[in-house]
């Protein structure tokens, strides 16, 4: 029992450390890492993993923003101008989700991200 709990704590520590590194290094929340790992390693369902990941991201993003702030990289005005309307956007998106094929949308979005990725990689 104690051994199982220990293993679980180790796994959570590994997930957290990896997610934190990704978050600080790339300016993302780390959910794309946390959600699948909670599902695969900790037996979480997809929904519980997503909700739990969001709670973790609040702490991770706050810590990473604070450290970036010390370096003087944070544009406070732009961040709030983007972040606050994004909250409304997420609520709209979640509603639309019931009506649009998530599969088609995922494929379109994967295409767009691929273009952005190659744009960055090739330095166009």
């Amino acid at each position, binding site marked *: 029992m104690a051994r199982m709990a220990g293993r679980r704590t180790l796994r959570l520590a590994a997930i957290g450390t990896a997610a934190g590194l990704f978050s600080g290094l790339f300016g993302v929340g780390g959910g794309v890492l946390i959600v699948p790992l909670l599902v695969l390693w900790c037996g979480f369902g997809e929904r519980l993993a997503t909700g739990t990941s969001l709670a973790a991201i609040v*702490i991770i993003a706050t810590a990473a923003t604070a450290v970036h702030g010390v370096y003087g990289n944070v544009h406070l005005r732009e961040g709030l101008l983007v972040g606050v309307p994004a909250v409304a956007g997420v609520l*709209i998106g979640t509603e639309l989700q019931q009506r649009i094929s998530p599969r088609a949308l995922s494929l379109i979005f994967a295409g767009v991200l691929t273009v952005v990725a190659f744009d960055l990689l090739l330095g166009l």
Partner: protein
Amino acid sequence: MIEAIVIGLAAGVVAGLLGVGGGTLFVPALTIGLGLSQLDAEATSLLAIIPVALVGAMRQRSHGNVDARTGVLLGLVAVAGAVAGVAIANAVPERALEVGFGLFLLFVVWRLLVRALRPPPTADRAPAPP
């Protein structure tokens, strides 16, 4: 100013639709749309993520989808990694950061494809062959 608001709204809609976090969208939106450097876009994206994740977590919690103990534990153990990540981001050249972020986007693409192409979980599946 209008640009930033439109970018945030649009990124939020896509994030809500796909369940992909805001940062994947905020960073390119901030560099392409508002002309921030990669480093500043990443830092600013993290600030923008806070309200989105906060509201998202509260909504999920009302649906019983948050394991708060695990979430807080994960967040706290991640702080050291996040501090290290930020320090690395500030130490490496801007170009390395762009390449790293490009590779990260390809990882997100791979995750999106895995999810999009696997059979829907609600569909009844044929019983496994004996």
